[in-house]
């Protein structure tokens, strides 16, 4: 009985410790990178079509656009937990401290991104000529945020 109790207490102590570790800054960074990689994978498919590296398919384009739209439904607030900038974790992330110093501006960039995603979804299936400018515009909103809030290198 006592043994069981000891094991229970030990487990109770260990589990929260490992839980708090799982939610540490590096995990937030990894999750954030993962989120943008998901976006990137869909953008890659769209950009390949826009650049003529892959053949245009209305279905595939609409699929990528829909996936990006789905990702915009995700509230990324948790991905921007404090203490996860490239000043806090050099070499692990390129997220500049400026993000946490100017959240409203980050929000504006996000709004522009979501607007471009909505536009893309409206036209992605309407042929390559309709897709191309919408993808360009969406990529432009990526750049606009990177310029201010992401370092060019680790």
């Amino acid at each position, binding site marked *: 009985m006592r043994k069981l109790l000891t094991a229970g207490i030990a487990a109770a102590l260990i589990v929260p410790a490992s839980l708090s570790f799982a939610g540490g800054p590096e995990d937030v960074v990894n999750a954030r990178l993962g989120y943008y990689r998901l976006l*990137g994978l869909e*953008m*890659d498919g*769209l*950009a390949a079509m*826009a650049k003529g590296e892959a053949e245009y398919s209305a279905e595939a384009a609409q699929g990528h656009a829909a996936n990006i739209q789905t990702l915009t439904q995700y509230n990324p607030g948790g991905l921007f937990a404090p203490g996860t900038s490239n000043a806090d974790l050099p070499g692990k992330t390129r997220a500049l401290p400026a993000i946490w110093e100017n959240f409203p501006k980050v929000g504006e960039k996000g709004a522009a991104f979501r607007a471009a995603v909505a536009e893309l979804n409206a036209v992605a299936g309407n042929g390559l000529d309709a897709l191309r400018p919408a*993808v*360009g*515009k*969406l*990529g*432009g*909103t*990526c*750049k*606009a945020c*990177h310029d201010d809030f992401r370092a*060019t*290198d*680790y």
Partner: protein
Amino acid sequence: MAGEQNTATGAKAPVAARSVALWDPVVRLFHWALVLAFFAVWFLGKFGPDQMTLHFYAGYAVGGLVLLRLIWGIIGPAPARFTSFVRGPKAVMAYARHLPARRPSNTLGHNAVGALFVVGILAVLVVQVTTGLIGDPEDYVNTGPLADYVAIETSRTALSLHELLGNLAMIMVIVHIAAIGFYRRWKGEDLVTPMITGKKQIPAETD
């Protein structure tokens, strides 16, 4: 022309002048086309649209012009040729010592110090065009056309360098323009007209 300058600036120089052919049409066309392409590419890069198509086109123009100048520096006429104007440190120091003197240098071509700028800006632009071609900002639309041929880490490093060298190139251009102004105001030597007409006014007794 030389006479006007002397009265305007007070620098002393012989009044009698003769006109000699200096810059060939390729050098002149290269120079002024590069001026346009450089300012276009720089401002488009810094302040242009987020879809950087025009920055890319201007960058290709810079690349083509630099390539042309490098070839012309080998096969072109003497004043354009690297072997005729790139000098050793001794010649550079010797010229630099005379730089503050308030009289025209009357150099027919790039002087030893100016040659440093010519080689320097061409080198910076070669690296700038290369890093632009292989750079990848990971936004899927402004990807350098050759980025696929290098690792993503290389593309990122290239882009960092691209930003840094962009600033350096602009500083060099400002120093270049300031130097032209210095020659005009302080030394009483017009370096702009020869780059337009190809002809330079030098004192009659100079060989």
